[in-house]
């Protein structure tokens, strides 16, 4: 992918150039330049941490508004599993499905249902010979991008199966075409209801030149506001629509759900972007070789903690735990939609494989010698800096500032602490 289209952006009207996001960005992709926060698109992983921490609401995510949808089309809603955790007093998942239909969607295909198929596909993939352990989940687009940018040796350990939201779009379209032979593929549009900006970025970026099964990506916040108006609680005999996903799919909304659903080998699950980075470092150092699967989510406690989800993630997790009591385990295995003989030997058909190859794509192609020289100069310069990592210069740390100066992106005079010490 040549261009990665990011969802996260800076509202220049609101940005005061404070240093909060600068110092909290886990990949040091932010600088303050000319009094405003600037995100380096080559390094940003769309984790949404800056949106979360900005005190001025200057960090935002772009996505499709409900008013952008073409209501003349056969619209299929693709609700993320986390949507079901957003509501107080929800005792049946069916109300959400009915609410989406009443909102104007012609059809609903739950991403949780697709997630159950991904679980099955992952099991099949892990049963094929020669797959390096531990296998790493590719469901969180932040983690996938982080690995592709910074963990070159772990790329081949990512599950090559497409993520649930993409598979949901594919299966939703196939089902609708079968049910409505009068419609053409162009007549239908899939609308993913996303808890996070990373999934928006993923879909926007893949769209360039590749088949993508998700046409619109909306924010869970927006949909939630609208959906509340349409969810009726006191109707008899209850909602007509029925939730198709089982408890396995819904568990994908919280950390550990995906890994536990595999039910085969030992696994590790972790969330929070800093914890994710620590686990990836451990994996690259050759530790953790005795486990089968690793599930990593950028947000805590899983997708319910995404910045586009309205409810506190921990409260949403509680809601989901309560909802689980009413949801049964549904056997959504791949044999329902596929002839399983196609998977003999653990081979996953091409159509379920993530189109974008998981290969290392370093930030630029550095000339090793030039980079070494720059880093040597930066080391010498960093020695003379105050090491306060205050961020007032616009770089996240004194070390980063030193390299920025050497690369001509900052001036040594930007260090206010040094200026003050010199003027004494």
């Amino acid at each position: 992918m040549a261009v990665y289209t990011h969802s996260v952006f800076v509202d220049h009207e609101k940005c005061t150039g404070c240093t909060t996001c600068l110092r909290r960005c886990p990949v040091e992709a932010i600088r303050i330049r000319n009094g405003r926060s600037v995100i380096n698109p080559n390094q940003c992983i769309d984790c949404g941490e800056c949106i979360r921490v900005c005190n001025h609401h200057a960090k935002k995510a772009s996505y499709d508004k409900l008013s952008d949808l073409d209501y003349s089309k056969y619209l299929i809603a693709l609700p993320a599993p986390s949507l079901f955790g957003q509501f107080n007093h929800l005792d049946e998942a069916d109300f959400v499905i009915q609410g989406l239909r009443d909102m104007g969607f012609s059809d609903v295909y739950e991403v949780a249902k697709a997630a159950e198929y991904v679980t099955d596909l992952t099991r099949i993939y892990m049963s094929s010979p020669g797959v390096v352990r531990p296998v790493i989940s590719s469901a969180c687009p932040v983690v996938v991008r982080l690995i592709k940018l910074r963990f070159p040796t772990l790329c081949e350990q990512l599950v090559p199966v497409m993520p649930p939201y993409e598979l949901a779009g594919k299966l939703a379209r196939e089902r609708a075409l079968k049910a409505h032979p009068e419609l053409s593929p162009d007549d239908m549009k899939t609308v993913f209801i996303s808890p996070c900006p990373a999934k928006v970025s993923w879909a926007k970026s893949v769209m360039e030149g590749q088949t993508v099964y998700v046409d619109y990506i909306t924010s869970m916040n927006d949909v939630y506001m609208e959906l509340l108006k349409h969810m009726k609680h006191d109707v008899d005999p209850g909602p007509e629509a029925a939730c198709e996903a089982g408890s396995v799919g819904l568990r994908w909304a919280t950390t550990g759900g995906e890994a536990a659903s595999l039910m085969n080998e030992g696994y590790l699950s972790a969330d929070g972007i800093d914890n994710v980075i620590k686990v990836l470092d451990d994996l690259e150092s050759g530790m953790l070789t005795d486990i089968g699967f690793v599930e990593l989510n950028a947000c805590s406690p899983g997708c319910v903690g995404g910045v586009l989800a309205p409810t506190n993630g921990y409260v949403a997790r509680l809601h989901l735990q309560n909802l689980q009591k009413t949801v049964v385990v549904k056997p959504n295995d791949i044999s329902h939609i596929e002839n399983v003989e196609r998977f003999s030997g653990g081979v996953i058909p091409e159509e379920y494989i993530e189109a974008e190859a998981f290969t290392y794509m370093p930030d630029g192609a550095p000339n090793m010698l030039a980079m070494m020289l720059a880093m040597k100069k930066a080391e010498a310069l960093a020695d003379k800096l105050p090491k306060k990592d205050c961020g007032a210069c616009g770089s996240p740390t004194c070390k980063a500032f030193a390299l920025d100066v050497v690369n001509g992106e900052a001036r040594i005079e930007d260090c206010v602490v040094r200026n003050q010490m010199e003027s004494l």
Partner: protein
Amino acid sequence: MNSEALHYHFDVDGASFANAGRASVETKKLLRQIGVSPDVIRRISVAMYEGEINMVIHAHGGDADVYITEDTILITLKDVGPGIRNVEDAMKEGFSTAPENIRALGFGAGMGLPNMKRYSDDMHIDTKVGVGTSIELWYHLK
């Protein structure tokens, strides 16, 4: 290593396991920034991590230094620990003198030195009982 080499120094804190591995993680980041190939980065990560853990287990920490030139990477791990009594034995897979409490933590499987050798192009051990150990890990980039 000549004076042109890019040099980084890390103190390996021997007081706890909490920080063990930091030098190798930092080194990995630097090597990636420079543009060293993923295969070399992985081998260095694994070998250096083993070395760091060894220093924590046996020698209360020590010094890790990384020297990078265009065609060679040298990592030196120096400690003033007990020294290795019999290097030949220590190089055998599964041989370990780690105490029981360390093994209980999952370390001391006797793969430290063999793994360091396996994941480096050249390894030199200079050790003296009661004085300390100095290990050189060499990587030839060309």
